[in-house]
């Protein structure tokens, strides 16, 4: 009987979660985001990039985290296209990353009258991780050579004068993994190139020591980070639309944690659940 109730309680929680999020997906509720300091700093860093330098949009993510990294990429690329900042899409952790970035940039470029090759370029996926990034920082045309369309990157106007990491105004590392350290180690640590970090919610706590030490200029954490960026762009995109559903799910989980704890302590008082005081 107890096993049956445990079996169904989990399923009921999944169902409650689906209802709590589903309602706010279907019913429109306007979300207003409080913009955090790390998100604002990243926005300001993109604004500060001079015209003769390029922004590297490092798409080190894959479809599994599209719900977070995809929306972050979209917000950041939108900012670059809107302000006419030259950028290069790049990836070295997941083969699908640059292709996903390409789809987003192609979809948005028409709205801001920008063109591939003139305003942005896609360096594609490159293997080699640490060694490749180290070589790339020293010599961009020599390491990248060809773009995603297999054309020499030096043939594009957007790449004129871009030789090393010193010609990169900002690196935007968008990732669900521990890839930030490679850029900090071999690019920021040696060339001082600023880095912005857009990560999944899970990875956000690991980003704060870098932010605190000034090794990254700003941080977007998960869907909330993407929504904050959309707020800064004064654009009501997918991230802002999804925030009510996100908040609803959070409230439900908080309520479930409270209920779970109350039930546990009641069961412990009756001697039905094991319990032990913490000790060092």
């Amino acid at each position, binding site marked *: 009987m107890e096993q049956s109730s445990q079996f169904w309680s989990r399923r009921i929680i999944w169902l409650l*979660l689906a209802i709590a*999020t589903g309602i706010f997906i*279907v019913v429109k509720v306007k979300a207003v985001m409080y913009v955090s300091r790390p998100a604002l700093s990243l926005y300001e860093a993109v604004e500060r990039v001079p015209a003769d330098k390029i922004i590297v949009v490092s798409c080190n993510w894959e479809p599994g985290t599209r719900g977070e990294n995809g929306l972050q990429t979209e917000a950041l690329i939108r900012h670059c296209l809107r302000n006419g900042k030259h950028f290069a899409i790049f990836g070295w952790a997941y*083969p699908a990353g640059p292709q996903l970035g390409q789809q987003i940039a192609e979809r948005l470029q028409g709205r801001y009258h920008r063109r591939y090759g003139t305003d942005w370029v896609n360096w594609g996926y490159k293997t080699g991780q*640490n060694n490749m990034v180290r070589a790339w920082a020293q010599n961009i045309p020599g390491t990248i050579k060809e773009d995603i369309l297999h054309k020499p990157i030096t043939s594009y106007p957007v790449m004129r004068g871009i030789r090393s990491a010193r010609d990169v105004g900002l690196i935007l590392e968008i990732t669900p993994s521990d890839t930030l350290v490679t850029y900090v*180690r071999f690019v920021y640590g040696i060339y001082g190139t600023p880095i912005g970090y857009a990560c999944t919610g*899970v990875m956000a706590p690991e980003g704060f020591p870098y932010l605190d030490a000034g090794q990254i200029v700003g941080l977007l954490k998960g869907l909330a980070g993407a929504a904050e960026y959309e707020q800064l762009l004064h654009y009501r995109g997918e991230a802002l639309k999804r925030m009510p559903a996100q908040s609803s799910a959070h409230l439900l989980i908080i309520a479930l944690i409270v209920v779970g704890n109350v039930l546990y302590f009641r069961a412990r008082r009756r001697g039905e659940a094991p319990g032990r005081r913490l000790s060092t």
Partner: protein
Amino acid sequence: MNRMPAGLKALIALAAFAVVVYLGIRYRVFAANLGIWLAAICTLAIYSILYRENVVFRFFEHIFIGLATGYSFYTIITQVLQPKWWVPVAKEGKWYWVFALLFSTMFYTVYSKRFSWMNRLAAGSFMGLSAGLGIVGFTTVLGPQMAASFKPLWTSASPYIAVNNILFFITLITVMSYFFFSFEQRHPVVKGSARLGRWLLMVALGAIFGNTVMGRMSLLIDRLQFLLLQWLQVFGRH
């Protein structure tokens, strides 16, 4: 009567699925909504694990793994090996890149007792390289972070910053004392500090858990939004 092996069943099911998809595209059975229908079926099949373990989930899980592996393999061939290795060797006369193939092949000698020493050469050289890069990492990554942990306990700029810095200092010292295992923590001060460190560590882990929940919910919302607004088109919205 012999039962059909599970692997063969899965292979037949996969082939049948591929044929249905191909015919659907070839004769435009699914029209423009093919992608949406396929994505919806895949999403629901994967979410079926929420009820219980089942064969549909397993089947689609293997499809996803196969697709991801196939896509990675294709990308590495077209984006890396072809332009970075094959073209220089075959078309640009840079024959010396053949040695890269020989070196990388050494990794596979691990499967042979006679030649496994070759694998150690290749692996050893990579480990040496990683160690060298690790030293660079210590100075450029951890150095600034250690320097940043020396915060003034009192600042006239803002009382909030001062409180934050004091809190940071207490957390740093107490958590470090918790992880100090070189001697037994008997002294009441050390014991109390370690206990406080453990509690503060739990607060940090709670924050990480909160962020994890946020991340997982974002991914759930992404899929639910697709199912409700694109596939089912609830209230006619896209």
